[in-house]
């Protein structure tokens, strides 16, 4: 490499190491690959929105471009944008741009790959007797059948309601039974009645 051209490679990640092929073709060098990271919301990943990506350039400048989120994107997934990296030298082709998607934390949902986890608070009678409940998903509310005899921590799967992809993720709903307070005499009586009626010891060896 001539001294003049070394500057062009100063911004590359890897420099001119011996195991790097130099991409030399027909009187030129392939441009440098560039790397960027972009934070997206779960909603953006679900709708597969276009997001703006800022690529830092040598000399403190920035380059902006829009990228449509492909199906199958989850936290930490990377895409390659062919020819969107640094310009080639001479007749060399431009480098590529690699973008890493980071899913930002969501107040309601937690993503694990393409699966979406959601905690649904339920009353003891809803869990014990079963019912239909409205559950939010990224695609809007859906009705979920709570089977009778559900326990706190029971997991119910909403097939295909997670992030899109091949295959799409599921939404996994974890039931969280919340006990009402025994606030007044009448309410306390209900618990006392339960204690009498229910032949139940959760610590009994099964």
């Amino acid at each position: 490499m001539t001294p003049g051209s070394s500057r062009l490679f100063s911004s590359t990640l890897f420099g001119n190491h011996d195991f790097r092929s130099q991409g030399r073709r027909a009187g030129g060098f392939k441009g440098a690959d560039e790397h960027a990271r972009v934070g997206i919301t779960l909603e953006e990943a679900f709708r597969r929105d276009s997001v703006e990506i800022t690529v830092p350039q040598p000399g403190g400048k920035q380059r902006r471009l829009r990228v449509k989120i492909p199906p199958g994107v989850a936290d930490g997934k990377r895409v390659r944008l062919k020819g969107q990296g640094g310009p080639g030298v001479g007749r060399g082709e431009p480098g590529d741009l690699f973008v890493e998607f980071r899913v930002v934390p969501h107040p309601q949902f937690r993503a694990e790959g393409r699966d979406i986890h959601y905690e649904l608070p339920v009353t003891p009678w809803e869990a014990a007797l079963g019912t239909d409940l409205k559950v939010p998903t990224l695609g809007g509310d859906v009705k979920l059948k709570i089977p009778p005899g559900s326990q706190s921590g029971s997991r119910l799967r909403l097939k295909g309601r997670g992030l899109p992809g091949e295959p799409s993720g599921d939404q996994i709903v974890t039931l969280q039974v919340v006990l009402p307070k025994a606030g007044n005499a009448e309410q306390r009586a209900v618990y006392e009645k339960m204690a009498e009626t229910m032949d139940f010891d959760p610590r009994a060896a099964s």
Partner: protein
Amino acid sequence: MSRRIDPQLLDEQLRLTLRDMCRICGVHAEYLMELVDEGIIAPQAPARRRTSRVPRAAQSWHFDGIAVVRVQRAIRLQQDLGVNLPGVALALDLLEEMEALRQRGP
């Protein structure tokens, strides 16, 4: 200035030949074969014991998109931190385990 481009997802479903891998990662086939020998990337077709510099079996190898990310990280670890290949293999496994744990959340 804002153009829209369709990206290529580097996931488990992507199928890349050895030649694709060389082009995308900007490395020689010999380097990728070293990484295969070290278990840092694994081709999908069974690899026979290598005899020549580029064995015929290697021509039918396929890699997924995750391998691209691993190769890029391997280069960075070797280049920037001076880690040797067994060290690279260990560091990559630990990094990926950490990422998996981070995703699983609290």
